[in-house]
């Protein structure tokens, strides 16, 4: 690792001030991606800005909507009574990220800011039409995820919290990579009164996306059987040594079926 200075600002304002000072400054939350990157010398920073003293870990209900602080760890989210009551699919998703030690350090804000194409949270946030609150503004999920590892965040913008509307039914199913447990394909289904939204992570070449074919099939009838005859194109799906594009396309439908069944059983 190249050497750097570690600073712990006491507020988000202070943190974003530091961030805008230099392009060589970076924010760190749980560090589950950034630290390995720094260790391999794939990145170099002047100042690492730790957010642990900014008070961003609270999970609250704000005007009836679940709001999760950016620094809430996956473990915090998975055991939170509030999350379990309001949005059990989120608690369940969080409980399946990585391993225990990753869940004890990794945060929802870090996961979203990184926008790894195989991260689990982006699927949930997009399917639930979540709102990403930042140090400057709020961003709708549909505008937030831009491309692989790319978000709408500006250089000196910090995620502070995420609001997630409550669906009637929702569930997440992933096909984990057997060694590393990231989502080779992960599907989040969310049924609202007015619409059904389905997002897919791990599969798309451009990162998380909404799957309209599955959405329209489910909007007729929200049942796993509605997806029996669905075929989604392999075009635009990731192909790698773990799974080829057509396999990922197939898994997407399969995970969606399972997610629907799971949400109905809840």
């Amino acid at each position: 690792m190249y050497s750097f200075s570690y600073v712990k600002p006491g507020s988000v304002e202070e943190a974003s001030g530091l961030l805008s000072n230099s392009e060589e400054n970076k924010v760190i939350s749980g560090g589950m991606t950034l630290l390995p990157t720094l260790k391999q010398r794939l990145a170099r920073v002047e100042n690492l800005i730790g957010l642990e003293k900014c008070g961003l870990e609270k999970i609250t209900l704000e005007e009836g909507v679940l709001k999760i602080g950016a620094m809430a760890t996956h473990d915090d989210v998975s055991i939170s009574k509030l999350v379990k009551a309001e949005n059990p699919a989120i608690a369940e998703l969080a409980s399946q990220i990585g391993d225990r030690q990753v869940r004890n350090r990794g945060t929802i804000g870090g996961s979203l800011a990184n926008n790894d194409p195989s991260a689990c949270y982006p699927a949930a946030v997009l399917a639930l039409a979540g709102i990403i609150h930042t140090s400057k503004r709020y961003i709708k999920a549909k505008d937030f995820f831009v491309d692989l590892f790319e978000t709408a965040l500006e250089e000196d913008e910090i995620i502070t919290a995420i609001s997630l509307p409550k669906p009637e039914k929702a569930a997440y199913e992933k096909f984990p990579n057997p060694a590393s447990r990231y989502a080779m394909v992960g599907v989040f289904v969310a049924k609202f009164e007015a619409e059904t939204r389905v997002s897919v992570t791990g599969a798309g070449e451009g990162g998380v996306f909404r799957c309209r074919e599955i959405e329209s099939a489910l909007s007729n009838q929200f049942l796993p059987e509605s997806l029996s005859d669905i075929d989604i194109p392999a075009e635009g799906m990731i192909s790698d040594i773990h799974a080829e594009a057509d396999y990922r396309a197939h898994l997407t439908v399969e995970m969606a079926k399972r997610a629907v069944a799971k949400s109905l059983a809840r």
Partner: protein
Amino acid sequence: MKFYGGKSVTDVALTINNKKHIQNVPDHMLLVDFLRETLKLTGTHIGCDTSQCGACVIHVNGKSIKSCTMLAVQADGCEITTIEGLADGDILHPMQQAFHENHGLQCGFCTPGMIMTAIELIEGNTDITEQQIRHGLEGNLCRCTGYQNIVKSIQEAARIEHH
């Protein structure tokens, strides 16, 4: 020993195995290197250095974490327990005793991390199932035992704790 050059250093105050330490550490020093190299607490191992194997698992404020993926400065003000802090003199911690009795180790390289994870795993969940134990060990790799006796050890420790 890894070379930690660089000018930024910070004073950290933390409690390790019930003992207070105040130390000046390079900002980019990993917690595991601080434990092993600075404090000579070599019971915490480094197997992979890439957050995969779990040989470096310790408890920070009661939660298991991989100390190869946390900085020493991030542990400022924390309570830390390492494998060295478990036994009471010659009396082993119940989890250590269970590993001892059930042949839960062979070469022993993964054992400190396994035990630290296992303790957190059964905490408040002493009727844990075999399946849950296997899931709970996702972040810890063992190249020797095939896990059977590790799972057995944890089951027994949970049983004893339960009574």
